């Protein structure tokens, strides 16, 4: 069998040198989308979920929207809403993994594997239900036949809410409007995120990894799209993307930086560890709320179609963009710009965060670096080297 080709990140710090001598190198195959050139559009739609299995649904939806916009053949609104629900379910699954498995491990707490496994299996059930409906990959010609078991969803959502928010996710989002309410929530509750946030307070790591905050907002999409349209620099751009010489960041923090709690933490502690972890919780609460309202018919889900062969979606780890050029049904060019390339750019937000660390103790520097990398979240494995000692 072939070895995985997702590549790796190699992250190196040299303590005692300016900016910790941070060096980030990626062996991610960002030009893999060349595979689709001279193939029918259907080939990309069928192959993408195979190649990008962890965020496969975000990749698929971005691809469908890019192709449909190149064809000027948009999907029906209802189909787009269910696609958005599929994106949110995938985001929920990935963020739960980070919060319930990796965050406690880094903090030396034993994760509740049985509970996470149950959440994972049940979410995968919903994801499969949506993913296998022909309406997800089709437009108005194809009738959607998705029927959500409301009771099953409500039971799952309630269990996740109890585990993460010690109550309703909507209430958590509504009542936590600043640092004071967050501290009170942590003091009142003994659920895992409350304990882990308290741990950050106790270690005084609120601002760990703080650096200049340059979010990749939706408003910048046109600039990203312009760069992708420019054939001569598109392949260079997707390897190390920058806009106007700024290395931008994308992900849960950029998605929720206007929520009062996240905004307050950004003001107080910048884009450091606490703000990032809380933004991830806000991402989960938001996804649970929107999915619940959609499944019970209370609210529609907002979506963005592609335009002129380019489509961007909010994947779990951040903004993901596909650009396709077609000649009839044949693909003549295909480019994918993934969140990891923004965030793990050699001068990007992770590099800046690691450069800001002050510890001279190698073990502590390793622990802090792991927290920062985890908080931003690469979609591939990484090797971390501190000084000359291999990870």
């Amino acid at each position: 069998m072939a070895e995985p080709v997702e590549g790796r990140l190699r992250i190196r710090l040299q303590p005692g040198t300016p900016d910790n001598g941070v060096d980030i190198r990626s062996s991610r195959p960002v030009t893999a989308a060349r595979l689709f050139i001279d193939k029918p559009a259907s080939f990309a739609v069928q192959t993408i979920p195979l190649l990008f299995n962890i965020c496969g649904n975000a990749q698929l939806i971005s691809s469908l929207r890019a192709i449909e916009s190149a064809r000027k053949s948009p999907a029906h609104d209802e189909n787009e809403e269910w696609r958005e629900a599929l994106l949110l379910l995938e985001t929920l699954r990935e963020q739960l993994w980070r919060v319930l498995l990796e965050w406690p491990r880094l903090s030396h707490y034993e994760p509740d594997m049985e509970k996470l496994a149950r959440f994972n299996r049940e979410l995968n059930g919903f994801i499969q239900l949506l993913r296998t409906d022909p309406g997800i990959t089709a437009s108005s010609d194809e009738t959607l036949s998705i029927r959500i078991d409301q009771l099953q969803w409500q039971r799952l959502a309630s269990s996740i809410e109890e585990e993460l928010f010690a109550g309703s996710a909507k209430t958590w989002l509504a009542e936590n409007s600043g640092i004071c309410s967050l501290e009170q929530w942590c003091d009142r509750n003994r659920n895992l995120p409350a304990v882990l946030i308290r741990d950050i307070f106790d270690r005084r790591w609120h601002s760990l990894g703080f650096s200049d905050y340059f979010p990749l907002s939706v408003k910048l999409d046109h600039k990203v799209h312009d760069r992708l349209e420019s054939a001569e620099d598109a392949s260079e751009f997707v390897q190390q993307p920058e806009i106007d010489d700024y290395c931008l960041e994308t992900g849960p923090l950029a998605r929720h930086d206007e929520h009062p709690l996240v905004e307050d933490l950004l003001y107080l502690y910048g884009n450091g560890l606490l703000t990032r972890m809380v933004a991830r919780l806000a991402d989960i609460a938001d996804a649970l709320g929107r999915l619940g309202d959609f499944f019970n018919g209370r609210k529609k889900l907002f979506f963005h179609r592609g335009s002129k062969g380019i489509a961007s979606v909010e994947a779990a780890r951040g903004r993901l963009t596909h650009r396709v050029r077609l000649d009839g049904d044949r693909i003549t060019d295909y480019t994918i710009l993934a969140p990891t390339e923004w965030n793990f750019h050699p001068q990007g937000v992770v590099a800046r965060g690691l450069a800001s660390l002050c510890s001279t103790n190698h073990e502590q520097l390793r622990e802090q670096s792991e927290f920062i990398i985890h908080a931003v979240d690469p979609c591939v494995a990484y090797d971390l080297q501190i000084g000359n000692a291999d990870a």
Partner: protein
Amino acid sequence: MRVVEAHSHFAICESGDRQKRVNTLFVGEVEPGQWLLVFLDSAREILTEEQAIQLNNALLAVDQVINGNMDVDHLFSDLIERDRLPPHLQHLSRENDG
């Protein structure tokens, strides 16, 4: 990766001549001979043999393409069919044929 030994909550899996311990808690019980989609040492999905072959061929193709070899159609003979476009785009394929 293919399951070689199944244990409670983990399995020994192989890919080529490489073996590793994989956490299987998230997919439930597995059996020797089954195929698993593995990400960062955890199984995320149980695959059918057909899915595993498709996935393997896709990875092989990417490996070849990034090394400059664009001749990969033989790895996707079951996928490169124009009539498998999503239903709402199929008429465009037929129009182009005409």
